């Protein structure tokens, strides 16, 4: 799909005819040299960037097995003296990574499900039904894309405070859903619009209700779009930092920190004591699951995250 390598090139020469063949033969030695040099340089550039990308992550992994003294020795890419998992045990229990992880999974699971349910319901109705106020509601949702979240930060805090939802998972989940709706609806409404009308009409003739048409006909037809935007929302909500920092505050909230907040907090306390090994183990515990999930679903993840930008 993203590759133009698929056509076997050798077949193209004979079909190009005598003129094309003699022409390319004429400049062959020159272009071969150009190609070789270019190809070599290309690999150098790509390998350098791959190292720049993977280097810090590899370093975190190596450091997670080292004692604090070893970390301060320098030699960042030296193997650890021994592979001890005690730093991991510390990170899991003392630094509460396990709890933060479960909190994040819980919140993202419910909020993504909610976003997809409510987002697709609204998008479907706005895309395929004519009624008074349709456009107004649609633009109300889509205009949300133009506003930076920072602008609403203070008011949002006081709205939640007024409702008694500050420091609660319920509040955070509702806010995640609300702030994910503009893009979800924008994307899905366009998708629902592009689906054919014939099947839906046939179902209407057969007496299917509106609700049934939505769940049994439209949702399955919109599967590829739904998958993309679900991945987009899972990654976006999993990586949220600003909203949890604002909302998960106040008394009792330290039990309910999410992973991003938790890691930031471990980093601060590690800094006070200049004791880094637990932090590295915590980072590995955070990153490793993502690498595994990415390894399995990398195609879907790449297309899901870029779907937003391609339109």
């Amino acid at each position, binding site marked *: 799909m*993203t590759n*133009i*390598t698929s*056509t076997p*090139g*050798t*077949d*193209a*020469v004979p079909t190009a005819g005598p003129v094309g063949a003699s*022409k390319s033969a004429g*400049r062959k030695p020159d272009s071969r040299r*150009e190609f*070789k040099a270019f190809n070599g340089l*290309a690999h150098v*550039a*790509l390998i350098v*960037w*791959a190292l720049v*990308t993977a*280097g*810090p992550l590899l*370093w975190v992994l190596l450091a997670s097995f080292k004692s604090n003294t070893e970390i301060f020795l*320098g030699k*960042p*890419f030296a193997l650890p003296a021994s592979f001890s998992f005690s730093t991991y045990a510390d990170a899991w229990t003392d630094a509460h990574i396990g709890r933060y992880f479960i909190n994040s999974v819980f919140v993202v699971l419910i909020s993504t499900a909610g976003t997809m349910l409510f987002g697709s*319901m*609204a998008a479907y109705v*706005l895309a395929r039904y004519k*009624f008074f106020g349709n456009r107004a*509601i649609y633009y109300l949702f889509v205009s*949300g894309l*133009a506003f*930076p979240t*920072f*602008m609403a*930060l*203070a008011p*949002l*805090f*006081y*709205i939640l405070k007024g409702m008694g939802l500050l420091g609660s998972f319920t509040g955070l989940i*509702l806010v995640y859903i*609300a*702030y994910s709706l503009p893009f979800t609806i924008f994307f899905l409404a366009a998708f629902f619009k592009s689906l054919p009308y014939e099947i839906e009409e046939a179902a209407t003739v057969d007496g299917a*209700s*509106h609700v049934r048409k939505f769940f049994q006909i439209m949702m399955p037809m919109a599967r590829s779009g739904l998958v993309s935007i679900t991945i987009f929302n899972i990654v976006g909500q999993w*990586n949220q930092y*600003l909203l949890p920092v*604002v909302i998960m505050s106040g008394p009792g909230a330290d039990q309910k920190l999410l992973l*991003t907040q938790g*890691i*930031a907090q471990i980093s601060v306390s590690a800094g006070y004591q200049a004791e880094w090994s637990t932090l590295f183990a915590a*980072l590995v515990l955070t*990153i490793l699951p*993502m690498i595994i999930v990415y390894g399995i679903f990398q195609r879907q993840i*790449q297309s899901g*995250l*870029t779907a937003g*930008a*391609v339109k």
Partner: protein
Amino acid sequence: MRHGKYPFIIGFLVVPVALYVTFVVWAYIQAFYLSVYEWSGLGPVTNFVGLGNFRKMLDDTTFWQSLKHNVFLLVLLPIITVILALVFAFLLNVGGGSKGGVTRGVWGSKVYRIIFFFPQLLALAIVAVIFGRVFGPDKSGMLNGLFPDSWSPWLFLADERYAMACILIVLVWQAVGFYVVLFSAGMGNIPTEVYEAAAIDGATRVTLFFKITIPLLWNTIQVAWVYLGIAAFDAFALVNIMTVDRGGPDGATSVLSLMIYRNAFEFSQAGYASALGVVLFFLTLTFAALTLRVTRRESLEA
């Protein structure tokens, strides 16, 4: 057929609209409202100051300093990221040379793409924690650990002169892979015949890049530019987690997003924070509109 249409429509819209109006629309309306009040965040909102908050900004050195840093990111983040991503995407897709006129991707391009893209999956908060250590100012930092022992340690984030550059590097590090994949997808949509035809005419790879790839990808580049610009207005997680004294040393890494957060929740200046938010909104909007206008090309629609 029309039976039960309106109850259905209302039933499907009521929850999403209610959630959206309560937490998003209402919050933004209040932000505009609060921006003309002086309000600590406690008690009734009574002290109307008109444009006082905005006037206060003009005399606020932190505001100008933060704005300067945002502009620094706004200019450099898109340029560097887009150039790197375009080059890498081009190398991946067309770098493999041509066989009988068909240009091909470089060997192993799939593996490169998988590695490059991964940082995009990490939360900026996690990236900030990692790079806080990468830039560690003693031997425990990755870069200082790599430097020869004879060097005195580089301070990186603790040095006012380089702290902002460190922030920029981290943002670029995270963003490049995403745009490599985005541009690769765009390049895949360019018909092979276009490259073949140019190659038969003897075009070099450099010519292909400037004369074919960039013009045909212009729309995608434009979108990338706007996205990266919006990211440059954020950078909150990086500055809040990674920098010395959050925005330091001595305000050297302060940005508008951090200012909004601190005014709202630490300095009891909810009104001023909202005014800053309003300014941020107009800055973002102006930037997006300007980008789309300036980069517009006759044949393409923005």
